[in-house]
């Protein structure tokens, strides 16, 4: 306890605001770098693949990146609050599978969507319970949940485990994300609104502010009477809900999805985007603006590499290296692992 006295002796509110101000200030440099990376990607890929710069392709990129944006929004809150949630890919699979099966069983799409997102809230509650009550490190808790939710998705799926055994639905309301609105893919519009809401939530509300407090210094938070455990639970629930929303959007775009529809590498992409965007691995730092840029970097990269004719597995390598680079930069900033 004595260790935290110097920090909490200043007024907590102004201390937090100062932290926030520092954060935005230091974040801007990283934003410029990410902006330059995006420009560089555009230059390289428009040379490597002439079709890259067409309106159709850019809209396609937006469509394909929308899900990543939605899931990354939740992961940003999670990681800022100090919880690296690696169960998000499995939660997406579970959510999409539950939604699909409910709509196939003949229930209305609204119920299916509600249940899909509800499954993410449920998983988040369990994750939160394990972290807060059983005091398990969030990484391990969500690693276990990765297996559990994935297994559950297969059970709901009918348990074949075969990727090609996807049961489609033609329900128009459930598959609404297949459509365009004034020429722009609906998932893209939805993701932009979602990210904007996340931005406001993170930078303008207490819910967002407390994420920094909990992740930056939990014991300082406790000493100013923040309900740290309840907040941690809420960020994990939020992360689960966002992942489930992403799972539904993917499922809707595909016209129904099963447990095997979510690529196993998705969690890598999400974590890379968020950390590339400046969220520190130890919690307490980061911003939605950075996450959005990180998502764009990766979305453009995936699309560009596909168009340039690189097989998917080269993308694993590139993304893995990118993640290491992102964390390496973070390590330079913070001193890193010792």
């Amino acid at each position: 306890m004595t260790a935290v006295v110097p920090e909490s002796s200043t007024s907590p509110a102004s201390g937090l605001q100062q932290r926030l101000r520092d954060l935005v200030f230091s974040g801007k440099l990283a934003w410029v770098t990410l902006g330059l990376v995006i420009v560089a990607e555009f230059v390289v890929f428009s040379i490597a693949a002439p079709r890259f710069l067409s309106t159709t392709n850019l809209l396609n990129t937006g469509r394909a990146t929308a899900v990543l944006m939605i899931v990354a929004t939740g992961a940003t809150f999670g990681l800022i609050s100090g919880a690296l949630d690696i169960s998000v890919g499995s939660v997406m699979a579970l959510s999409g599978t539950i939604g699909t099966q409910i709509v196939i069983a003949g229930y209305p799409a609204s119920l299916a969507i509600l249940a899909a997102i509800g499954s993410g809230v449920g998983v988040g509650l369990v994750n939160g319970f394990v972290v807060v009550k059983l005091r398990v490190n969030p990484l391990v808790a969500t690693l276990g949940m990765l297996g559990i939710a994935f297994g559950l998705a297969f059970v709901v799926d009918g348990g074949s485990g075969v990727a090609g055994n996807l049961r489609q639905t033609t329900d128009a309301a459930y598959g609404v994300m297949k459509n365009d609105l004034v020429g722009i893919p609906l998932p893209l519009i939805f993701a932009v609104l979602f990210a904007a809401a996340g931005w406001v939530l993170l930078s303008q509300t207490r819910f967002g502010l407390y994420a920094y407090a909990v992740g930056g210094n939990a014991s300082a938070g406790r000493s100013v009477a923040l309900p740290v455990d309840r907040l941690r639970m809420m960020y994990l629930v939020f992360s689960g809900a966002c992942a489930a929303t992403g799972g539904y959007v993917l499922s809707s775009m595909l016209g129904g999805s099963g447990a095997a529809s979510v690529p196993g590498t998705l969690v890598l992409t999400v974590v890379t985007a968020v950390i590339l965007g400046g969220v520190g691995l130890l919690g307490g730092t980061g911003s939605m603006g950075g996450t959005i840029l990180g998502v764009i970097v990766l979305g453009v990269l995936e699309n560009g590499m596909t168009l340039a004719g690189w097989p998917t597995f080269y993308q694993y390598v590139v993304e893995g290296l990118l993640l290491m680079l992102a964390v390496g930069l973070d390590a330079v900033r913070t001193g890193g692992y010792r």
Partner: protein
Amino acid sequence: MTATATPPGAPLDSRAQAAARARRLLLGQHVLLLIALILLGTYFTSRLDFFLTSQNVLTILRFSAVTFIVATGFTLVLIGGGLDLSIGSGMAVVGVTAGKLFQAGVPLVLAFVIGVVTGIVIGFVNGYIVTRFRINPLIATLAMLFVLLGVAFIITDGRSQQIRDDGFRFARENVGGVPVPVFFLIATAVLSVVLLHTTKAGRHLFAVGGNPDAARQAAMNVDRFRLGMYTVAGLYTGIAGVLLASDLGAVAPNSGRNWELYVATAVFLGGASLTGGRGSVIGTFVGVVFVRTLDNGLVQLAVRPQIVLITVGTAMILAVAFDQRPKGGFR
């Protein structure tokens, strides 16, 4: 992951600490686990006529062998305060390297040796990244998981192929009625116990993982230890990868999927700690046998593999929860 150092010298806690120590002595985790294993075995025996036959027990041991070898590497890394999520992909790279070389006409033994060396190189790279670039081992090895998966796919062009050669499939043979992988299990166990408990380096590893700052003050080269332990873990990944490829009789880039989950579960059940400085070969052995027995019994009870995955995930969370309870856990 975050700083979970226990508050130093808090006198009020000394009674609680003594109680915790007494509890740990009486209910040492692998003793409890052994009891759980016996209960589990009894249950399966009562439900399945076939369960407690020597053939099935040998089957469980055969499946335990590869898991144990790679789990021992995982344990060493945990003891030294690291983490390695890349083991599954590492095994896949090792397996496809050996398999592809063999298919290309390289002599069998040489192909296997190169496979094991590949594992050592992978371990060294993991250790180098973690110590040189100061990247958190969780993220470094998560990234490596995908890099290596990509490499395994690139080597095989994304295709799995059977290898129908009895020499290549040596891991399926029996010697004196005992499956070949079991001999590797014994060798690994002996080597690791010797390494950990009779050498100075092994004993220092516990200090390095338990309190790296104190170890530095005692003039230990923490980074060298960590580089070494990742490299040894790489050796184990290499051996396990070769055995797995041989057992499957195939070049399969997918073969390492979900291994980190099974291995982490076994090792945490066996009493190793996520915060470093704690873990044992015997604990890991009991943990691995427990997980593989669970697997074997559930499959024979015709429980679907997805449920097995759910059970394993739950077991891991409970193992860590149990482990963290006396120390206060994640705060």
